[in-house]
């Protein structure tokens, strides 16, 4: 069974601070996706990384896939209250079609 562990589980910071969320596994994944979920809504895809060592940037968000494709990180620069939400990582396995294994999530609160 593939497992993804996210840390921290909860994070409360002030507007303007930087933060990093980690997603770790002992298993290798074909791809790693990051989702953001707001209360009362389903998760929305932010990014997909598929190559070991890959780095993708989405405005103030930087996503990295580990060289061994077992871990990933999400770094937010100068966080804003609009970044508040639940961040989920999900690993994909080529051998399981489009199946995803989700991490437990990181709940981020950015205070103005």
């Amino acid at each position, binding site marked *: 069974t593939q497992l993804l562990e*996210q840390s921290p589980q909860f994070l409360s910071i002030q507007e303007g601070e930087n933060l990093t969320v980690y997603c770790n596994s002992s298993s290798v994944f*074909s*791809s790693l*996706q990051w989702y953001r979920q707001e209360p*009362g*809504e*389903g*998760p*929305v*895809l932010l990014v*997909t990384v*598929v190559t070991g060592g890959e780095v993708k940037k989405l405005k103030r968000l930087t996503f990295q896939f580990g060289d061994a494709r077992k871990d990933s990180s999400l770094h937010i620069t100068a966080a804003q209250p609009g970044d508040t939400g*639940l961040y*989920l990582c*999900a690993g*994909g*396995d*080529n051998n399981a*079609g*489009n*199946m*995803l*294994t*989700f*991490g*437990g*999530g990181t*709940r981020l609160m950015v205070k103005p």
Partner: protein
Amino acid sequence: GAGVSQSPSNKVTEKGKDVELRCDPISGHTALYWYRQSLGQGLEFLIYFQGNSAPDKSGLPSDRFSAERTGGSVSTLTIQRTQQEDSAVYLCASSPWVAGPRGTQYFGPGTRLLVL
């Protein structure tokens, strides 16, 4: 809109009753997934439909849970003899079939189930 829709948005039921949750995927999406999410937690995979293939039921927690997908479109998740531990948000997602890891899953808003 053209997104994934789920109904009802909220459901309160008594322990022991049966419930049916509905998912309308995005038109043309061949893959459909059901997940369960406990309060503020990650997603637990339940079942996966892909085209006309037999569904992957490996995530269903017990035989009280079943799902079907009629005509390759709408899906219904049924929970029989509900228990309090079944209380959660049930999320449905659909995706177009893309060979390999790049298929994006589009999620509905979920059904919040509370078993009293």
